[in-house]
């Protein structure tokens, strides 16, 4: 049987923080999907949805920070509880930043459609990067929910792939621009979107690193390989 706290209210408070964070994660994930769907379909409504979700996400960030502050003040958490709360505070920040990236994509898509620039014909590689980024974020949140270190470590390694994907996208877009200068405006928009997706991958990686911290108490940040070299 999983041990519980002598104080059932403490258990309830910790559980509330955990599930609220996952709820925030779900919202951010959906916002990112909407932003990419807006890119594909050009629906104004989706762009508007992405924008309005950002406000809710920001409010959730404030609420979660507040809950964590009160938990620390009232319960003086230690060991696994302390690590969980530290992780929630950090993950909240990462999720909020992912929300910002999604909002940024939404704005770029809005501008692209407003100014009537056409999509790049046959250019679909951005979807690969988008699926990768959304998948990583979802997996990182799942790993957090299950405190799954193995999955977390896999996600940390995956970040390299998304960085590579971004670099190859960039090369491809440069080729487009050189071949036909009329595509420059669109291509630049796509570069911004790609960069935002690459950042989402970084945030997902951060979340995975906090999962390792929650589970094992080891800080694996800034410990592996050369620093991010993409732009």
């Amino acid at each position, binding site marked *: *049987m*999983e*041990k*519980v*706290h*002598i*104080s059932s209210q*403490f258990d309830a408070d910790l559980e509330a923080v955990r599930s609220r964070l996952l709820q925030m994660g779900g919202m951010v994930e959906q916002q990112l999907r909407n932003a990419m769907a807006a890119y594909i379909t050009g629906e104004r409504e989706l762009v508007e949805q992405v924008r309005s979700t950002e406000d809710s996400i920001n409010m959730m960030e404030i609420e979660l920070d507040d809950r964590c502050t009160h938990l620390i003040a009232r319960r*003086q*958490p*230690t*060991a*696994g*509880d*302390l*690590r969980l709360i530290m992780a929630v505070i950090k993950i909240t920040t990462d999720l909020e930043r992912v929300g910002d990236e999604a909002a940024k994509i939404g704005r770029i898509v809005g501008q692209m459609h407003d100014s009537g620039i056409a999509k790049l014909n046959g250019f679909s590689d951005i979807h690969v990067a988008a699926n990768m980024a959304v998948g990583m974020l979802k997996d990182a949140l799942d790993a957090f929910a299950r405190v799954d270190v193995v999955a977390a470590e896999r996600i940390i390694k995956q970040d390299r792939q998304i960085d590579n994907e971004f670099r190859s996208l960039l090369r491809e877009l440069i080729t487009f621009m050189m071949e036909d200068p009329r595509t420059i405006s669109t291509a630049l928009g796509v570069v911004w979107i790609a960069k935002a997706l690459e950042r989402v991958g970084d945030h997902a990686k951060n979340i995975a690193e906090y999962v390792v911290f929650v589970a*094992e*108490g*080891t800080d694996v940040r800034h410990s592996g390989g050369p620093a991010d070299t993409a732009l």
Partner: protein
Amino acid sequence: MVIPMPNATPQPAQASSIKAEIRDFNFFYGNFQALKNINMGIEEGKVTALIGPSGCGKSTYLRCFNRMHDLYPGNRYEGQIVFYPDNTNLLAADVDPIEVRMRVGMVFQKPNPFPKSIFENVAYGLRVRGESRRSVLEEKVEQALHGAALWNEAKDRLHEPAYNLSGGQQQRLCIARCLATDPEMILFDEPTSALDPIATASIEELIDTLRGKVTILIVTHSMQQAARVSDFTAYMYLGEMIEYGKTDDIFVKPRDKRTEDYITGKFG
């Protein structure tokens, strides 16, 4: 110096200097074994906290360091508590418990000043030692009261009864009484559980200033207190030393599940 590695309870890393080494230590109240096979090294000049649920043996263990259990028949020590630098086993039959108590002072849960003046309380240990020169006594009393952060409050009332002091002041007086005999180690048995938060904070501050000068062993029921004041923490359960390590590690990532459950307040 060889430091024993206790079963599953590693020593503090990079032990700088060991004040006391506990080897294969057991303690019995008659037939009941209260402490089981404890091995640990206590670092000199550091604060080591003993935590654990009621009845785990932490106070029993603390009292072994100044042979308090000698007072009752049927109590039995096994193993050694070796003090450095002189390599004396405090538990050896030829070691006088009075001598041990000169080296190892103790402060209890409730302040227990003697029904004497403030001055005489602090001078008591020195007089027991045979010191009667007024100038030496005065100097030592002042020093000890300074050491216990009580001088400013007590200097104008040294000859008033100690009972006139507040609870927190009385506890600091007991610490001054300990300090007067220049002990190498001070044992604190829940020194603040009878004090309000302000008096508690001043005792904790005092423990902080004693760090480096004297080796401190403290039993506390307040885990926050252990986390605040100690350099090392030992978690005891049912007479065993479950985990012993740096306080920073014990409170952030304890190795043993039982430690984790205790400090996070879990059961089941």
